[in-house]
């Protein structure tokens, strides 16, 4: 790569259309969690108003005892990428959507992500449902409210909702929806399902 002037600061930043309003006041976040290839980034991209971006976190001490990382012996930092997108809700509120891997070895990322998050969408591929067992348990332990969204891959087996509920050991109150991670409206509906569920929980809490 050539630099015309190596002293110039890096020209980085958003494209003009990706600028927020100057008075955008507060951020909130929702997490999309699931296994590799389940469609997290696709879902984030489908509803985001900006092209999905990637932030990195280095895993050092935080990963000790959690990430076995057998392929990287002697390497004491590992970088994990998280894709995210953004939806401007109104003039005062910006919703960020983070995709994070569900496997146990990535749980060190969860502290920063789930703290202060409204809730989570657990994205499920019915061909590899096992990744979601630990995710669901872990979210319940952390008391993070979540809905389950089954990404309807065309070639994936179709299970009736009650069977999925049993398979994932979900309580009756946790919503399960089917979605197409490529489709904006479908992903929006999954997010709406989460918000409506959160309203229900909030109402129960205050009752």
């Amino acid at each position: 790569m050539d630099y015309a002037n190596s002293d110039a600061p890096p020209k980085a930043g958003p494209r003009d259309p990706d600028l927020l309003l100057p008075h955008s006041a507060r951020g909130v976040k929702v997490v999309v969690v699931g296994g590799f290839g389940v469609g997290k980034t696709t879902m984030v991209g489908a509803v985001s108003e900006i092209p999905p971006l990637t932030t990195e976190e280095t895993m050092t001490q935080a990963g000790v005892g959690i990430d076995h990382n057998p392929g990287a012996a002697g390497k004491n930092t590992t970088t994990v990428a998280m894709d995210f997108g953004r939806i401007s809700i109104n003039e005062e509120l910006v919703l960020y959507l983070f995709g994070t891997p569900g496997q146990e070895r990535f749980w060190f990322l969860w502290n920063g992500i789930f703290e202060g998050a409204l809730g989570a969408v657990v994205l499920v591929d019915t061909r590899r449902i096992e990744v979601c067992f630990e995710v669901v348990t872990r979210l319940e332990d952390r008391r993070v409210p979540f809905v389950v969204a089954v990404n309807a891959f065309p070639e994936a087996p179709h299970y009736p909702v009650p069977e999925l509920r049993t398979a994932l050991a979900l309580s009756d109150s946790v919503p399960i929806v089917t979605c197409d991670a490529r489709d904006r409206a479908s992903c929006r509906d999954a997010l709406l399902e989460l918000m409506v569920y959160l309203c229900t929980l909030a109402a129960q809490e205050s009752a």
Partner: protein
Amino acid sequence: MTSENQDPWDEAQPVPLYVITGGADSSAKSFDLVTLIASRSEPEPSMSPEPAAILSMCQYPLSVAEVSAYLTLPFSVVTVLLSQLVADEHVEAIAPVPVAAYPDRGLLEAVIHGLRKL
């Protein structure tokens, strides 16, 4: 490979990250991924490239996650840079909406309303 006890730094990052942060240790616990950063001053010629870039890109508010993405620096490094910029009053950090065990109903309704417009 000139050194036999080569440090296992990330191969893709030629500059050790502590150089970029000016050697500062992380005392940056207060930043969330969605803390919004807004510049309060223009970049100065004496600044290092990364803080200067942050001031340029945050003329309009950006989340810490976006700053990290655009600078292609890890979140933890960006928060160190940002704590210095906040301390020097070059940027303002706007904390996310606080979310209790269950979020505020008004907040949820605003989000629902916003999503329906998508």
